[in-house]
């Protein structure tokens, strides 16, 4: 009965607007056969792909494709469902190349297939875990989708929203025109290649073997990572080199996959908080913030103004420390050893300050539902002011030592050209997108917290190259200082407590529902999707990591560059690998 209902929703291509409830803009339910066309339409309309989430409910596996428009304040989710015994979706990687990784990730975690996927290999899990699907729910754990989203929350969209017409168009086409072939043995398909053309590889692991498909005498296949100084952790990039030129690059992920999404389902809402400090340990507070915002949206918690201000201040301090580390590490990639030392000097000061209130130096667990764990001490404002002043005074030194340096400029100018269309296709956000000349910042486009009361600029550079991304981050540091100072001024007037009176306690169970919250992290748009069935534990947590999308364009961006430039591009994307692998 219910199953009928959910499938009927799809057949009718209903658009549902529930932004204020779940933070997802409008949701469109459609039949999975039409997905590829819908994606093409979305791309044409200028939407960028945020992420692809799967939700395992008793009706089947629901695919949620989240799109964002950069200019309109619009977030669209296309939802489609596939029954468990026929879990197969058409791949939209042909339209949005960024979907490639999202789909591969989903194939790792769920027993689903994506038809016509260009490269159906495991992404995050080791290749010998192909038969295990850790996020697949047991039969008895599954709940109905309507337990998560009660029927009354579906509000029909009667507007002339683009998607409604898009849905109508699709509806008018006959269903038979989009046949879906479900091939269960789709995974691990080796590309068809004549045997004599295949390079015989005796050693190397699954990924190297999978990578080396064509035969050529003068090509060198090189494994950069998982232990390599410039991959900032354990990213591995398989490179095909012709001399020093990169012919093909393929990042291999999963070396620090820490099961964050699985942990979301086995821990309670509170217990999941410390994980948020460890997804992206350089801008941990942004993840704290996104998760708390999502859960607060779910449980309809209003956060006191003072708490919001503290959140903004600490968040921006954290952004400063993250950018400082990036600056140093990037210069380290480019071969300068000293800048990172100067950057850490300032970073240490910021970390000392954050440590006073959060208790740790980088893996913060400071925000809780309804506020922050503790109020700032009395001398906090004064200390913060003096620290950001010191930093502001040092920024010109950074410019003199590095930004204007001839050698650096030659290393970053016109390197790693990423244009807006590429960002759209891959879903890149953050400084990568702003370095491509697109003014998109979650703080500006869909303001959260108290950002809309503050006066600051979103630096955007139109150069599309590594230099632009570099400049965006350098300018953002100055803007963060501005934000902090203004928020500190406002903090004196706000004395409604650092946390709501009846803060959720250990037995906290938010009502069932789903919520999505996005914040602007140092690396881009951080999105947290939480679905709850009314239990103590989240039913599903999806973390949309900006680095994941940003890295996915590396393969295209690095093609034809020099090895040294590839390193420079990797650095300019500002990667934190645990965030990508989650």
């Amino acid at each position, binding site marked *: 009965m219910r199953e009928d209902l959910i499938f009927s929703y799809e057949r009718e291509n209903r658009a549902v607007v529930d932004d204020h409830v779940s933070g997802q803009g409008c949701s469109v339910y459609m039949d999975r056969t039409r997905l590829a066309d819908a994606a093409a339409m979305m791309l044409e309309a200028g939407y960028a792909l945020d992420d692809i989430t799967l939700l395992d409910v008793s009706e089947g596996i629901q695919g949620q494709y989240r799109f964002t428009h950069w200019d309109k304040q619009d977030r669209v989710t296309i939802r489609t469902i596939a029954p468990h015994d026929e879990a197969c979706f058409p791949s939209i990687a042909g339209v949005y190349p960024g979907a490639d990784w999202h789909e591969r990730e989903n194939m790792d975690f769920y027993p689903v297939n994506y038809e016509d996927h260009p490269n159906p290999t495991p992404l995050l899990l080791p290749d010998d875990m192909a038969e295990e699907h850790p996020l697949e729910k047991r039969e008895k754990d599954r709940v109905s989708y309507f337990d998560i989203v009660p029927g009354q929350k579906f509000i029909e969209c009667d507007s002339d929203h683009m998607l409604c017409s898009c849905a109508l168009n699709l509806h008018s086409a006959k269903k038979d025109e989009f046949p879906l072939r479900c091939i269960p043995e789709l995974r691990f398909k080796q590309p068809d290649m004549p045997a004599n053309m295949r390079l015989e590889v005796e050693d190397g692991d699954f990924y190297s073997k999978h990578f080396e498909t064509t035969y050529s005498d003068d090509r060198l296949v090189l494994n950069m990572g998982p232990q390599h100084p410039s991959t900032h952790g354990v990213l591995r990039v398989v490179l095909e080199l012709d001399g020093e030129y990169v012919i093909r690059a393929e990042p291999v992920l999963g070396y620090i996959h820490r099961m964050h999404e699985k942990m979301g389902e086995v821990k309670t809402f509170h217990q999941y908080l410390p994980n948020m400090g460890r997804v992206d340990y350089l801008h941990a507070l942004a993840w704290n913030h996104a998760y708390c915002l999502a859960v607060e949206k779910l449980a309809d918690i209003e956060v006191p103004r003072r708490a919001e201000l503290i959140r903004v201040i600490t968040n921006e301090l954290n952004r400063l420390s993250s950018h400082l580390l990036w600056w140093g590490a990037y210069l380290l990639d480019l071969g*300068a*050893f000293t800048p990172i030392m100067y950057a850490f000097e300032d970073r240490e000061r910021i970390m000392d300050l954050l440590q006073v209130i959060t208790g740790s130096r980088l893996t913060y667990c400071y925000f809780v539902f309804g506020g922050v764990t503790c109020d700032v001490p009395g001398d906090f404002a004064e200390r913060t002011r003096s620290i950001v002043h010191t930093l502001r005074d040092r920024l010109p030194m950074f410019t003199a030592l590095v930004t204007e340096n001839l050698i650096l400029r030659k*290393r970053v100018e016109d390197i790693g050209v990423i244009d807006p269309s590429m960002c759209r296709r891959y879903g890149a956000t953050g400084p990568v997108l702003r370095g491509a000349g697109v003014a998109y910042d979650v703080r500006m486009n869909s303001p959260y917290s108290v950002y809309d009361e503050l006066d600051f600029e979103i630096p955007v550079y139109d150069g599309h190259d590594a230099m632009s991304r570099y400049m965006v981050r350098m300018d953002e540091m100055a803007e963060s200082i501005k934000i902090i100072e203004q928020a500190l001024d406002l903090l004196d007037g706000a004395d409604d407590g650092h946390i709501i009176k009846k803060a959720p306690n250990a037995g906290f169970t938010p009502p069932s529902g789903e919520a999505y919250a996005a914040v602007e992290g140092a690396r881009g748009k951080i999105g947290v999707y939480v679905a709850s069935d009314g239990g103590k534990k989240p039913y599903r947590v999806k973390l949309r990591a900006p680095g994941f999308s940003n890295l996915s364009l590396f393969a295209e961006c690095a093609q034809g560059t020099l090895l040294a430039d590839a390193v420079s591009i990797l650095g300019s994307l500002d990667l934190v690998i645990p965030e990508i692998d989650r």
Partner: protein
Amino acid sequence: MMNFAAIPEPALRLVLCIVALAVFIGLNGLLLVYMERKIAGHIQRRPGPFEVGPHGVLTPVADALKLVGKQLVAPEGADKWLFWTAPILSFMPIFVLFLPIEFGPNLFGVETNLGLLLILAFAGFNVLALCLAGWGSNNKWGLLGAARAVSQSVAYEIPLLLTVLAVAFMTGTLDLGEITAMQGAWPWQWNVVTQPLAFVIFFTCAVAETNRAPFDVPEAESELTAGFHTEYSGMGFGLFFLAEYAEMIVVCSVATILFLGGWKGPFISGPWWFLVKMYALLTIMMWFRWTYPRVRFDQVLNICWKWFIPLALANLLLTAVLVKVF
């Protein structure tokens, strides 16, 4: 060191000289390692080695002894013969390089009127060693590093030679002793005044020749892990390390002789002036390393072929004309 000119027998003199040089290179290597780490530390506002011995002076000694005591590993599939030849080959020619250098009045190993040529010729050996190291270790990073090293060294030898030639034109000799002798004690009597461009080019090329930052592309840490010596452990790595520092000493010595008046200096000339000048140049080299980002590999070659060689040629031409005119 002692006055070698007083010893008549060339053979004995040579043996003594090599022993003295070995000590000199070893001591200077340790000193340079210490100096580099201290300079790096101070530039980065930290003390650098500090606790091992007073102000950490024993740290390089500990490093050296540790490297000696390390297990030697040759990777599977490496050409063992080439693999172990390479570090030795990189270190051995260093002795020859030191022989004609005149550290003080009559303080040199071999008196030869082709000293400069000898140094330039044997400096080329190092490339061979790096090439063998990269090729022999059966490592892709090593191979890339070796390829970079070869093309860089070959390219930079040309402007180096051209600038040296300019000085040779002026002085009319290739004998390092004579070149020193033709310069005066005071800075304005040094060749650097008449050949400033040559000095700049020579010094930059010297930085590149010794694979020092910002031209350290063959061992670019963030790109090629450790470049040609990726697979070397223990003393194999130690020898490369030592050879690099020894070469730095050689190029700075040559620069001192060619452009800065060698052991001559104001007030009391002598070997101390030589050491002061040499160490000043070494300090500048280290200062470069801890300030600049690395130049990209193709840019390294571009700088050489498109800037240094034409400039050095022009300089040489001008020198030739001027020498002819005056």
